[in-house]
């Protein structure tokens, strides 16, 4: 089980690092936001969802897509503008979606996915699917009106929404603590009548438990819940971010805290053979290398189709 978790997190890390390489060599162009260091939240939260449930992520959403089961080759192809991409290159790094995998899209507007997730839950109330929606956003999104409106709307109508705030301490390049007077972000949810919990996002078990309770509550018709998962990103906000805002020594501490390092230490301490632990990383990297190679060999999406899908 724990080795499965490690493999799942390595898959995300290896995908992100491969994307970084492709971006730096110029095969992928544009703005790319990686989730290195935050893998545990996606892996643990998605482990509690059913296929019918809907995930709404942000531009830092590659890991959530992988955790939902979106094939890495289709993600690479999407970022590479290939016809085999999940959206044929129309979505790109920050805006792809794969509803067939319960991944209803990233979003490049901070906080904008939260009200849309509320709508997915609203539909679930009427269509008999039992669907609940999970929307994940960062600490910075807590200062967006859209998130406040979405939380109140869901609370007022007892809609089955799980609000997950990945608090990685930075609103893009600015410390969240400098942007709020009340650092306990979960109190915003509590104030709206939404049960809220703060967890160590690097601890898979804590995230799993919090998400499971939230999903159960939503599915039972008891309305939304809020999970604030404390995490850290161990890379820049975007590829190319000089990260001058980081205090000295912070990254070194975060590299100790981050979930892959943490779980690796745990497994070794429990006596799991080093080779078994190392195999997770090797296997994940091999999978991602193969997926990226396959995507690179796929044809580019035909420019003649550039206006397709604008209207029904």
């Amino acid at each position, binding site marked *: 089980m724990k080795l499965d978790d490690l493999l799942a997190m390595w898959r995300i890390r290896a995908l992100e690092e491969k994307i970084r390489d492709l971006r730096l060599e110029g095969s992928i162009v544009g703005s790319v936001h990686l989730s290195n260091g935050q893998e545990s939240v996606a892996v643990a939260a998605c482990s509690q969802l059913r296929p019918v449930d809907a995930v709404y992520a942000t531009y830092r959403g590659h890991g959530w897509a992988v955790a939902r089961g979106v094939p890495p080759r289709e993600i690479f192809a999407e970022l590479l503008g290939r016809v085999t991409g999940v959206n044929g290159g129309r*979505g790109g790094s920050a805006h792809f979606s794969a509803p067939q995998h319960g991944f209803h899209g990233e979003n490049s507007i901070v906080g*904008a996915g939260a009200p*849309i997730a509320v*709508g997915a839950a609203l*539909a679930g109330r009427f269509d008999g699917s039992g669907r609940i929606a999970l929307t994940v956003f960062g600490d910075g999104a807590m200062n967006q009106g859209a998130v406040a409106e*979405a939380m109140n709307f869901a609370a007022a109508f007892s809609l089955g929404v799980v609000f997950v705030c990945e608090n990685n301490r930075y609103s893009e390049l600015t410390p969240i603590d400098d942007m709020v007077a009340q650092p306990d972000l979960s109190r915003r949810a509590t104030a709206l009548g939404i049960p809220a919990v703060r967890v160590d996002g690097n601890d898979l078990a804590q995230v799993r438990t919090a998400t499971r309770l939230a999903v159960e509550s939503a599915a039972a018709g008891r309305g939304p819940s809020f999970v604030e998962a404390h995490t850290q990103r161990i890379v820049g906000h975007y590829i190319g971010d000089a990260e001058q805002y980081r205090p000295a020594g912070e990254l070194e501490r975060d590299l100790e805290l981050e979930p892959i390092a943490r779980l690796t230490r745990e497994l070794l301490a429990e006596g799991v053979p080093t080779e078994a632990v190392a195999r997770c990383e090797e296997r994940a990297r091999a999978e991602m290398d193969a997926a990226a190679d396959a995507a690179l060999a796929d044809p580019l999406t035909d420019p003649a189709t550039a206006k397709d899908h*604008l209207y029904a």
Partner: protein
Amino acid sequence: MPEIVKLNVGGAVNAALARALEEMPETLLYGEDVAKPGGVFGVSRGLHKRFGDRVFDTPISETAMLGAAVGAASFGRRPIVEIMWIDFSLVAFDQIVNQAANVRYVSAGRTGAPLTIRTQQGSAPGSCAQHSQNLEALLLHVPGIRVAMPRTPQDSYDLLLSAVACDDPTVVIENRTLYAGPKDAVEVGGPVRPIGGHRQLRSGADATVVVWGAVTTKVLDAVDRLEAEGTSVDVLEMVWLNPFDWDAVLDSVGRTGRLLVVHEAARTGGFGAEVVARIAESGVALRSAPRRVALDDSRIPSAPQLAAALLPQTADVESALRSLVAGGAE
């Protein structure tokens, strides 16, 4: 079975909403004060009682309302959301422009947002600056959003049903000064037509007037004055602004050689500029320079006499038409 009933615009909207809710179980109707109060203009009166939970009141949270519509629509619901004043849509423009308009395109058609936004705009005496704007050009600048602007009871009924049936996000812009207007014979229960098209209100050879919205009535008054003097004018009311019936406009201007565009929205960047530009690009032979009558680029004052000085009046249309027809009248 189609039947003819006497309805004003408000009644026609109510009848269309009732039919959509009746015939399309996937529809939802919600907004601020639309359910139990029946809407601030009363157009959704009785629908909550008749259709229950599918018609509900919401918090004053336009972003949540429209975001929820995007999400629900992508899961097979067909939300009809009332934005009480178009001015209020501005606080939620992200959900219209960045979200609803993008869903189908960026997902490469894997999902869509078949939602309808019902709103109303226009200047009425004393409405003040934040309840008076005509903002259709903001929406028309956004590929992916359909826009309709009905005026008559029949169009208010028909266009709303076409919008709800349409699989694209569609904004139906009504005009509150028309809701309580005179009743007219409206055919209800007929086939729901696809979106698009225009209304040919007058036919003539000397000039083409392209117009939309409540100001159409002023255009007809002006045109009728000129008709009495022997000038005949083609009047095209563009009840659908996206899709826009370019062929009809090109055809008419090709015949008359003269174009006047009239809208209540501001002149600069107004959609009239697009109409004039397309005519210019088409190379159609013109007998005189095209003209526009529009809001004289300004904020809208509260005092009626101040607003009237800025907004298009019948006399402005008449004067523009006279000079248009005088130009190249050899």
